[in-house]
């Protein structure tokens, strides 16, 4: 679950339009090699996000076996 977005307004607009907003649950499908991007599923959309950007999304885990990105 997304708790908060600690990003600059430009990226916040983008992320919200892609469905990443507080209260929304998201699923990490995979991580790229060599600190590559993260593959996420949010609602009906799949997207990739670089780790520096992903790190600014504060999440809390709905499923303890899955670590926060």
């Amino acid at each position, binding site marked *: 679950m997304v708790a908060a977005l600690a990003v600059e307004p*430009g990226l916040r607009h983008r992320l*919200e*339009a*892609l469905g990443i907003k507080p209260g929304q649950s998201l699923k990490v499908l995979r991580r*790229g090699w060599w600190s590559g*991007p993260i*593959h996420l599923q*949010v609602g009906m959309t799949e997207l990739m996000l670089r780790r520096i950007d992903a790190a600014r999304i504060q999440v809390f885990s709905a499923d303890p076996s899955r670590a926060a990105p």
Partner: protein
Amino acid sequence: MTHCLDSAGVVPVSGQAMVTVVGMPNTGKSTLFSQLTAAHAHIGNWPGLTVDLLQAELNLEGRRVQLVDLPGIYDLRGHSEDEAVVRRFLESTPVDLVVITLNASQIDRQLRLALQVRQLGLPALVLLNMADEARRFGVGIDLDELARRLELPVLLISAKYRQGLALARHAITKALAASPPGAGRMVLDLEAKLAAADDDLAAAMGPILQAAVTFPAQWRDALTRRLDRWLLHPLLGLPIFFLVMALMFQAIYALGVPMQQALSALIDHFSRFVLAPALASWPPFLSAFITDGLVLGIGTVSAFLPVIFLFFLAMGVVEDSGYLSRAAFLMDAFMERLGLDGRSFVLSLMGFGCNVPAILGTRVMRSSGLRLLSMLIIPFSLCSARLNVFLFMASVFFTPRQGALVIFGLYLLSFGAAILTALLFKGRFASEESLVLELPPYRLPTLPQIWGRAWAEVRHFWFWARRFILFGVVGIWLLNNLPFGVAPASAQSLSGQLGELLQPLLAPIGINPRLTVALVFGFIAKEIVLGGLAVIYGQTASSSALGHALASEVSWVQAVSFMLFTLLYTPCLSTVAVIRTESKRLGFTLFSVLWSLVLAWLVSFCFYQLAWLVGWR
């Protein structure tokens, strides 16, 4: 409507209603636009906007309207260039109807944009595209309920498979019938209107979705998941990617090169057997100008057409299937460190065939910094035309074993130059946007779609590049043949004199005046370097004769220095032409040419002087 691409945009046409298409990126807006307009679009030159907008006249049951495709946007309040363009457009152009295009299967998030447009108070209509995917993924939409809650007409269509298009046209006509011609409105206080409603928007979305849409209990696109497991595999993903690229590359050039050769043979025959006899009675200077100068110019431009066509067919498959964004995912870790992203990598690889379509292809990237940086590095990709020159030189100066090593070294240098350039300039052309890319479900590309796109690209190139290239070719032909009566490209010609003049600069890298003239030829296109050398050395009879003449005057160290320079400096006039038209910046184009010349000189200088010190001659 004319097909003339360079006429200034006919914006807006008086007496015709203005209809614009608005939607998020990748919702199929372009597909819809070309289906509705049957590809009669032209690029309008809208005052005050930095990007090209596609515009076409549409005949709707007898009424003529102007249809404009706006860039894909995520959010009307967003901060990207495209989003600013759309805002400026809506504020400055009277619009009669906004066609909001949404991806039906992603209506859970895309509905927001429809609500924003409604907030502006513009007459609007919602087209839910990709009905086929929504059905496949189990997203059910109650159209009547949605239309009632949005207070807008809502239609379900599939642009790619041409479903629901007739109904969509009819709905547009009906919506327009309500407004008399000239009733179009611009939006006043756009920012304020949107800002006021932002919080309500989020609150309004939930109930609408709940009432009108049913989502599948779990993710239904098993095919995409299964394919991704292999194609994005941590270990196998990259090898598969390189294999795919290699196959694509092979296919393009296995087909493209013979087509290219056939085309130039055809033009050559025409020039020799039709044009030359017809011009026999003309003064020799003029007839040579036409047969060698002009025809060569046209030949140079048209030689690119088959490769561009095939390239965009292949690119269409990679892009439409959804693999391009997977490639971006795979290469991103590496490219991020160079200030680029995975898509630039795909394009640079394609540049090893021909730089021109690769640069045209940078249009898939929306961030201008990223595009410019990609355009800066693509010309260092060792294209097939340069490879020809190197194969010839290697065969003249080296044994086959050594020659293979030299060529391999040139490929390494090609990568090195691109990486160095990216590292040096990533600060100046920083990508201003964070990379957030959608990974769409895999889709089967359809032939009409990729065919139409490739065809449009060819026309686009032909139109924009031919003038520029013709000028260049004719200019250089004049350099080689003026003053009147000199032997072409000889020491007395203007270019010969230029070669002498440049000696202080080029002697330290081992380039003699004759080789300088060859480099001048190479500026037009590397395809004509060998032909140019043959003229310069007066050895047009056979390539082995040319080889002997070259080897007797030039040492192998000089030859390598020449190859290094040829690899790194401006690939060809066509590349310069497309950089100019794609970047729309003269300054950037000059910078790109200059940087490649400087880098070429520096590398050749280091090599030649070191070789000299070591005692290689």
